[in-house]
């Protein structure tokens, strides 16, 4: 019984650490590859991408945070009225 528990623990250690290492090592490779590929693909149009996505955001429904804007405005108004 006890030895089963120990052997289960050993199995967990072996296969567990094995999987963690295998997975993260693979992720190192895939991340490196991904960075190379992505940067090569996007390199010619970095400005475009940003611009597009900003347009995208503006196009999105309800994309402005009205409260934040009000806060900023209030801060500025208050400041101006004091100075």
């Amino acid at each position, binding site marked *: 019984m*006890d*030895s089963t*528990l*120990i052997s*289960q*623990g*050993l*199995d*967990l*250690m072996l*296969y*567990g*650490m094995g*999987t*963690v*290492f295998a*997975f*993260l*090592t*693979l*992720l*190192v490779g*895939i*991340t*490196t590859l*991904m*960075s190379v590929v*992505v*940067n090569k*693909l*996007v390199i010619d149009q*970095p400005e475009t*991408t*940003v611009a597009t*996505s*900003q347009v*995208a*955001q503006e196009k*999105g429904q*309800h*994309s402005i*945070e009205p409260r934040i804007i009000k806060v900023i405005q209030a801060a500025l108004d208050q400041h101006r009225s004091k100075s």
Partner: protein
Amino acid sequence: MDNLISLWVSSGLAQMQSGQLIMMIVGLTLLFLAINKGFEPLLLVPIGFGTILANVPGAGFDAAPVYDAMGHLESPGGLLYYIYHAGIETGLFPLVIFMGVGAMTDFGPLLANPKTLLLGAAAQVGIFTTVLGAVALGHFGILDFSIREAASIGIIGGADGPTAIFVTSKLAPDLLGAIAVAAYSYMALVPIIQPPIMRALTTPAERQIKMEQLRPVSRAERIVFPLSLLVLVAMLLPDAAPLLGMFCFGNLMRECGVVNRLSDTTQNALINIVTIFLGLGVGSKMSAEKFLNPETMGILVLGAIAFCIGTAAGVLMAKLMNTVSKHKVNPLIGAAGVSAVPMAARVANKIGLEANSQNFLLMHAMGPNVAGVIGSAVAAGVMINLVSGM
């Protein structure tokens, strides 16, 4: 007169059992540690308070609702009952927290230096050695842990609160209180636990190693990374998909730049609300019969060991990498692989500055730091998979 008796009989003093009293003191101690010593207050304040509430005799915070034969509610359940069963037993709260943590995580340093992922892998050794330690305690007849309980104890070494809560609520819900408290306490103790180990395993020369400045990371990489990670998890390790999937979702919302209002809410209102209720719900499991026993002491000891081994493994892995790679890594950042974001990274930075006041390791340590989050989520997935089949 009957009413006086009724009031007295239902008073806390008349009903109080010694266990409840001790647990209320435990709750107050957690609050003291959180408020006065700064131990992970965002979680330990709600956990500590929840502990007190759950142990108020006769208040019924933990009571299940009662239905009559027709299915109508006769008496409602307690607040902590609903929180625990709706949010923790189902796993929903840890997953939402993981989404929020993802939305707060900057993968930039990791993307600039992907091999630091290996440091995050190495630090998970602490998890699995601790599992072995827990079953060994059983073998020598000292304490009695099942394999499911041993796995839950090990995950303390992942230094990641929501991961520990997620795994424990699935594998060993009775230990939830002890394990969550141990996990968050040791994360708070990182600045005390780690430095001696880091100094013992490194030479002054190693601690002075200067690392190359990190390259800038493009927005496209930041967007594609969480998706790559998600696909890899989906292909290889579906058991880790709930945790890592929500983590990647939060990070994608952060980085994609087109849903900033969703990302802001995830990082603020949503994660704060869920944190409050997660803490209270964990506290509801802090009952005397589940916490005041030798097992809890064993959990605390094993948890500390897990942190130490994880730290050592991270540092040693960095030294091993230096023997094969020409881009040298300062071994101090290996200790950040246990996660405990961002404290472990700050500790690495501080010890680095002691050795060389011009050597800023913070950004370099953030890579293994977030890698440790991924690593422990992967370990959690493997354990849930393997243990369920045992």
